[in-house]
């Protein structure tokens, strides 16, 4: 086995070669069109970014099958590990099995979470005391901006991982509706995140929100960010398309929509948002790129443009985006609670529909990010009311979770601990929402650290904690072994109180006058102690995550053998062997009961073989 046999290696080479080719293309074009000077760094780099990304996709092999089809060659779907190479190599190249792709998404997501977290640890260290310790204003701004996008890419990848791995398994499907598109949608993220990381070489200072005119006037690092997000966004759109078709068309007999596992509803609602909203940020970032490259004055008042237009376009995606981030995790909470309460999910239909309600109402609230932007006064009240309304379906979820726990027979292995942690943290985040939704109070809190506290709590509660719960919960199914329960509990008990401290600390310093995105603060504000606490909390969280990584890696070799169903779950994926075989379901399944009928003796959800006439 050579290095060259790994798709990832060929992809990287493809990206390097493509980058050079793209730059050359731009230089030659400028020569031919008589543009002066022939070497202009920014257009050359953008040419390199675009062709480099295509080069990566060609190199890794994500386009190979489609190229073959264009030449009229058949390409049967290959199942199983690659011939003549070790099985692990399949994770480093194009593989069409949704379980492999799910792992690829998940592991890449964890890596990006680490990278995004690292940026935070760096500037949190700087912020622990006032005065400049080791960062300067320029690199501070770059690191905080990178923290934003790296973390958000990590979330999209983590969601892709959970959805891709679990949805086909939960509906007894062989694979996703479009396996090649699935592989492509994963792999397009990789040149995207390489491009994002390349931006470090040049720096950019606008925060993840990259408002113009700052992002048009700033360094060329911005271009890397615009195009990286474009690529990651494309992955989001294609992946969600795949999931919607799979969910609507590939369910087994007996699995009506209200008999699906609840996580599938959550993914469905999320996919509806991803499919329809992502285009707006792609568009907005393209406009920024063209304004820089081609002088198109979309957001330049001197050319008849308007800076606020960008904010509308950006937030029209980016608000629904936060529901993309949290809906799957909230679905994980709903999925795991019944298993450890040994009770039905309380109000299953209401929970399912609340995800759809959040997705729909989420499209109507974007203006609450712009209360101070200078847009028309008449817009403030409608956006305030619509934003407050989102609290209603969200409340339905919280109360339903309480209803699920109440009267159950609760046990607390690590996945359940992280679900409970998720609920407590999402509660803090969610409750700090209405005060921001109310315009008058937002006029004070906007662009302060209170907002930072709010969204970190909602994102950790809605994604990070449930993601970790999911990793621990399905780890035995994926690997066939149990993780170390003691280490898992230590991870939880370090991370959760630290996170509560971090949230309160951030909201507290915000209310005391600490603005967002500032490299240094006035000690007279009295926030130094709060910042120290937040930094210590951040370090604690980072350390606890390292413990988890160690646990996952170590237990894969030495963990106790798990068996098919260590959690005694009713869900289909727990009725098949662990680890899951190449072809997950030896025969098609039939749904004969409700998913969460715990407490009814001898009730079955899924029959592992098709119903024959004799069964009637």
């Amino acid at each position: 086995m050579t290095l060259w046999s790994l798709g990832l290696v060929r992809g990287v080479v493809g990206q390097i070669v493509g980058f050079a080719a793209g730059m050359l293309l731009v230089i030659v074009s400028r020569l031919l069109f008589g543009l002066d000077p022939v070497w202009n760094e920014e257009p050359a780099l953008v040419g390199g970014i675009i062709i480099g990304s295509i080069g990566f996709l060609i190199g890794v092999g994500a386009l190979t099958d489609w190229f073959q089809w264009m030449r009229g060659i058949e390409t049967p779907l290959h199942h199983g590990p690659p011939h003549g190479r070790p099985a692990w190599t399949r994770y480093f190249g194009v593989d069409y099995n949704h379980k492999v792709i799910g792992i690829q998404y998940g592991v890449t997501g964890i890596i990006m979470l680490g990278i995004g977290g690292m940026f935070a640890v760096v500037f949190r260290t700087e912020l622990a005391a006032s005065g400049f310790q080791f960062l300067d204003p320029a690199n501070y701004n770059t690191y905080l901006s990178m923290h934003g996008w790296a973390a958000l890419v990590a979330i999209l990848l983590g969601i892709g991982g959970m959805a891709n791995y679990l949805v086909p398994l939960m509906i007894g499907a062989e694979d996703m509706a479009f396996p090649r598109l699935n592989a492509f949608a994963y792999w397009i993220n990789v040149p995207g995140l390489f491009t994002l990381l390349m931006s470090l070489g040049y720096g950019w200072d606008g925060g993840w929100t990259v408002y113009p005119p700052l992002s048009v006037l700033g360094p060329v690092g911005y271009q890397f960010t615009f195009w990286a997000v474009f690529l990651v966004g494309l992955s989001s759109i294609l992946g969600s398309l795949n999931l919607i078709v799979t969910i609507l068309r590939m369910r087994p007999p007996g699995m009506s929509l209200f008999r699906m596992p609840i996580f599938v509803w959550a993914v469905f609602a999320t996919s509806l948002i991803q499919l329809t909203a992502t285009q707006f940020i792609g568009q907005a970032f393209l406009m920024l790129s063209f304004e820089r490259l081609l002088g198109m004055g979309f957001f330049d008042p001197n050319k008849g443009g308007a800076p606020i237009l960008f904010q509308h376009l950006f937030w029209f995606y980016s608000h629904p985006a936060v529901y993309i981030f949290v809906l799957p995790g909230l679905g994980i909470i709903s999925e795991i609670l019944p298993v450890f309460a040994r009770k039905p999910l309380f109000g299953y239909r209401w929970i399912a529909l609340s995800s759809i309600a959040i997705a729909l109402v989420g499209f109507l609230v974007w203006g609450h990010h712009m209360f101070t932007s200078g847009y028309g006064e008449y817009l403030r009240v409608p956006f305030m009311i619509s934003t407050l309304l989102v609290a209603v379906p969200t409340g339905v979820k919280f109360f339903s979770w309480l209803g699920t726990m109440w009267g159950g027979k609760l046990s607390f292995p690590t996945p359940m601990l992280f679900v409970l942690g998720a609920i407590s943290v999402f509660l803090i985040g969610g409750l700090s929402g209405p005060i921001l939704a109310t315009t008058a109070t937002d006029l004070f809190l906007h662009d302060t650290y209170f907002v930072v506290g709010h969204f970190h709590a909602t994102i950790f509660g809605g994604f990070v904690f449930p993601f970790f719960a999911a990793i621990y919960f399905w780890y035995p199914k994926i690997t066939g072994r149990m993780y170390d329960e003691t280490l898992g509990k230590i991870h939880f008990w370090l991370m959760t109180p630290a996170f509560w401290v971090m949230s309160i600390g951030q909201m507290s310093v915000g209310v005391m006058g600490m603005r967002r995105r500032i490299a240094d603060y006035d000690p007279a504000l009295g926030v130094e102690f709060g910042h120290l606490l937040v930094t210590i909390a951040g370090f604690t969280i980072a350390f606890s995550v390292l413990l988890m990584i160690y646990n996952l890696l170590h237990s894969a070799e030495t963990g106790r053998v798990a068996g098919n169903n260590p959690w005694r779950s009713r869900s289909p994926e727990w009725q098949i062997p662990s680890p899951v075989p190449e072809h997950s379901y030896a025969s098609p399944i039939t749904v004969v009961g409700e998913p969460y009928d715990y407490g009814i003796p001898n009730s079955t959800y899924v029959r592992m073989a098709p119903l024959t006439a004799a069964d009637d």
Partner: protein
Amino acid sequence: MNNSARTKAYGRSAMIALTLAVLTIIEFYVAISLDSAIFLMLIALFKAVIVVQAYMHVSRLWSPEGEH
């Protein structure tokens, strides 16, 4: 779809992509020199129709299942 039909279909897709690119370049120059919103809308509409039919195969929504 047999292989030669497939190859032809890909060829058509490539031609349409090229057409869209050319139309975009035309749009750019129309915007700069003519500055006519109506004309730009018409070109955009035409492009949208091409995309919706040739790439999204919208007319298949009305054809019976399994046919093209």
